[in-house]
């Protein structure tokens, strides 16, 4: 597959994953671009595994980028209102509520370890446990456990067990 074709096909989902992983859309954009430079430099040997390879590299680069820009990240986290709005809400109250929710989700994800976050978010992108295990460097058997543990942590912070949770 040509590089441009791979970019068109995968950039949106990689951006979504990186933005969720880092909590920073600007950083996520840089991460995705770095991923495709890496693809040009050192493409995977098995092209049938390209999507898993892209997410694995995104995870690695996102972790490195996040560690090297902690100061920037903390500034972004401190300014919850600076996070881009998903879509223009006609109702200001709804907009505020959405922003508040976004901040809570981001903070909750930030409490997870990098491995837990990768497991949770890669599963969200539809990957099999085997592929997730390869990406985060663990066994297939422990992926389910890590996923359940991560959900348990988020459930407390985000009220996922509440009857009216949506």
């Amino acid at each position, binding site marked *: 597959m*040509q590089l441009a074709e791979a970019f068109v096909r995968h950039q949106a989902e990689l951006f979504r994953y990186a933005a969720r992983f880092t909590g920073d859309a600007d950083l996520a954009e840089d991460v995705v671009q770095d991923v495709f430079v890496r693809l040009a430099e050192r493409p995977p*040997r098995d092209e049938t595994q390209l999507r898993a390879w892209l997410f694995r590299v995104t995870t690695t680069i996102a972790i490195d980028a996040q560690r090297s820009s902690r100061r920037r990240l903390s500034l972004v986290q401190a300014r919850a209102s600076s*996070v881009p709005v998903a879509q223009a809400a006609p109702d200001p109250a709804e907009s505020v509520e959405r922003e508040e929710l976004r901040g809570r989700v981001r903070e909750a994800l930030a409490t997870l370890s990098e491995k837990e976050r990768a497991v949770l978010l890669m599963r969200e992108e539809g990957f099999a446990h085997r592929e997730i295990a390869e990406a985060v460097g663990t066994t297939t058997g422990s992926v389910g456990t890590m996923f359940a543990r991560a959900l348990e942590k988020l459930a407390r912070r985000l009220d996922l067990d509440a009857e009216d949770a949506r």
Partner: protein
Amino acid sequence: MTTFDDVEVVQRRAGRLSLLLARTDAPPRPLVLPVARIARAERRLAVRWRIAAAVALLIAGAAGVPPVRAWIADTVRAAWRSVTGRHQAVVPPAPAAPTVTTGAVSFAAPDPLTIRIARRQTAGGTLTIERTDGLSVSAAVTGEANAAELVVGPEGLRIVNRRASTAGYVIRVPAGLSRIVVQVEQERPRIFGSPAAGDRYVVDLGVRSAPVQALK
């Protein structure tokens, strides 16, 4: 132990988290492929490959020069003596035939890739197609200075050689190509799949030669 209730709880939480994530995602951005950075990266790769080729040629060439060959042989003998503690005749490896690279070109691979050779060569010569892990095609002329021009076009590479050329041509192609079309003069084009790891295709360019061999 995992119970049915546990599974149900995990599934319910996962479903609710999916909804939350979708509601709070950053808006999609019109990302742009970093073409300039990728081009720089590919140039760096090409430069590394050329440096490696130049070093290999230098070593091969130096081994062909008697004083250097003698020095290598002495060094090997000395090393052998220091290991074994005794004098022993060591036969230095036969020097590789000096190879002259007279032209090289690298370009983004179209798929399918077409390679046209203008003429068969009276004195022989080969076109060798090998696999590379990069994304570019690289081509090099070996064995004779000014033997041919390498012309890159939208569908691939044209080797404009002379009937009297004695050069060989080495083309390295990315692994992901679906087809490689080789046409010598106006003969029927030959179509190859992209070589697997370790494979290479050799096309004999001699005037009276048989066409193609696939080597492992």
